[in-house]
């Protein structure tokens, strides 16, 4: 996630991180007393990841329309 310069690559890294958290939730659901609560948390994580991907992709498309690239290092217009 930190080494990618492609904006969509960064998004995929975020998806991987959230997915790793989900694996932990499901493991806790099976092997600890957390039970069904962990599965509900995992469900919320999946839903929020989908929402985040949609919004971030819309932002990436907008950025591409304005700059004709999705190199995240080019998004420096707000730099002081």
């Amino acid at each position, binding site marked *: *996630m*930190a*080494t*990618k*310069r*492609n*904006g*969509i*690559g960064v*998004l*995929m*890294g975020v*998806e*991987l991180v959230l*997915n*790793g958290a*989900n*694996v932990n939730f*499901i*493991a806790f*659901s*099976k*092997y*600890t*007393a957390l*039970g*069904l*609560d962990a*599965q*509900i948390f*995992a*469900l*919320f994580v*999946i*839903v*929020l*990841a*989908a*929402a985040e*991907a*949609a*919004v971030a*992709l*819309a*932002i*990436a*498309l*907008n950025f*591409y*329309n*304005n*700059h*004709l*690239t*999705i*190199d995240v290092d080019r998004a420096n217009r707000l730099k002081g």
Partner: protein
Amino acid sequence: MSDSVLAGENVLFTVFALATCLSAVAVVIAQTVVRMAFWLVISLGSTAALFFLADADFIGAAQLIIYVGGTLILLVFGVMLTASGPYLKLESSPGEIILGGFLGLLFMFAVFSSLQGVEWPAPLTGDSAVIGAPEGNTLRPLGLALLGTRPDLDLRDGDTLSTGYLLPFEIVSVHLLVVLIGAAYLARAKRRANAAVPGTADS
């Protein structure tokens, strides 16, 4: 559960866990973004198989439907809409790669050291059904919990009534509506900054 079934589960778990981890690493080190998307499909699909193995059948199905079927298609569409040429590569400098690897190792060290400090409760044995580890068929308990009732907890002796997840469910619903409207607003068709491409000016 017989020994052969248990051994089969172990083999399947090993296969899918290896597929998940290796393709996750491949996502990180792949060069083009389309290959990253391919390895991400493998990784998320194997994760769904791991969920099925852990008796979380509804979460596994949701993972397949939402992640693999929805989010990744969305990402691939994003790749197609934003690639200015075939085999687009955005190389990172070696310093960035070293910095990223260092940060990753640092995070792994932090996770491992905090894992060492956790006092794990004893693994559930025997009466795990009483404690509430679900054993498959979780669709109805999950739906009831999202509606605010927890029959798997309420019917236990000595517990107060649990509240379920009705309010988080509503918050997520409103959040999804806001995201839908916001994403449609952000991604609406606009003229490009330099719309001088011939033949597409009238579209």
